[in-house]
């Protein structure tokens, strides 16, 4: 009989602890917050940028960027990164005395125009220039520019974006 009472009390207490009412839910308020721990770290450095070509003549093609200013532009996936990453690139049109379309620019993984990784610069992220890159990796990109004929003299500038996402995630 004594044992039965003890078991009953323990059981009832357990039931009451298990079914603690959710008053926040009842009032329609409440929010959840994340904890401190982080599971994904993506840490990228860019060096040998900004990309620059110096003075170029109109009507010339595949002008390689200046040394260490796009020849190459270096992307480092730092050692704090804990996932493999895909790297995408996009850019804007050049603005200056007139507009120069973004597709006058190409980038590559070597300093020779053409080949497998020869890619035209676009205003949206399309295909990754580097895929499944592990942490602690250095990748070089080489930049080429065509100058349209009869382009008015002046300074032209644009912005180039380097995007790193977890491998397999859309940009």
């Amino acid at each position, binding site marked *: 009989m*004594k044992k039965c009472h003890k078991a009953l009390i323990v059981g009832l*207490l357990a039931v009451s602890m298990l079914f603690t009412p959710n008053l926040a839910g009842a009032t329609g308020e409440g*929010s959840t917050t994340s904890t401190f721990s*982080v*599971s994904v770290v993506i840490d990228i450095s*860019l*060096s040998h*940028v900004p990309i620059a070509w110096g003075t170029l003549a109109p009507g010339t093609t595949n002008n390689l960027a200046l040394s260490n200013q796009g020849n190459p532009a270096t992307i480092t996936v*730092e050692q704090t990164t804990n996932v493999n990453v895909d790297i995408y690139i996009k850019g804007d049109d050049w603005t200056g005395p007139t507009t120069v379309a973004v597709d006058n620019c190409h980038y590559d993984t070597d300093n020779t125009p053409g080949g497998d990784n020869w890619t035209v610069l676009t205003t949206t992220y399309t295909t990754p220039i580097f895929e499944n890159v592990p942490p602690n990796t250095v990748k070089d990109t080489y930049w080429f520019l065509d100058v349209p004929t009869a382009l008015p003299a002046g300074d032209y500038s644009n912005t180039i974006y380097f995007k790193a996402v977890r491998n397999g995630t859309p940009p």
Partner: protein
Amino acid sequence: MRGAKSLFLFGAVLCVLLVSSVSAASASDEPRYNLGAAYNETFPQIEQGASGTSIIYFYSAFGNVPVYVTAAVDSCPNGWRVEFEPENITVVPQWFENKPFQVGENEYCLKLTYGGNVGWVRAYPMTVRITPPADAKPDNYVVKISYVGDFRMEGMSIVKRSGGVEWTVEVVPRPAPVFNILLIVVCVAAAAAAAIIIKKRAWLRFRHVRRPKKGRE
């Protein structure tokens, strides 16, 4: 001869010093545009009618150029609200410390591992609050946000480093109020039953203690 030897040593030391200063100068002159982002891969479940938050920590341990970070929503279901607090952040580069250190308001001391070492960096948290509409059905929804690190030099933006976070957000049903009331009743009944049983046992013990006395009399 001895004087020549001293001069040679002095020259060697001077050369070493010169080489050191040149390499140090070139290392500090070379701009390095770094931005790190740390976040939880899973977003907390959100109850219907409530909101959920997660934090992205930005830092620059390997860089030497401050970076101005903004975030935007790439895609989310119709009627959902995604807010960033703060809306933009300036991340100041700082190398790792070998122990936790005091940070300022709206900063975080973030523990990271790098090359087999453990270090702490000054991180700048950005809270992402996601609020589904009150009538969102329990299901999994994809929310994609992107951030852009703008490295400004002399007021002009020249390089931008961006990244993206894709979260699958699970909306779960809110417990019905009737069910909650029922649970409260069960809990109260359980407590009352426990109290009655304890009281009854105390009375029985009391009687049990008194009976032998009577027998002895």
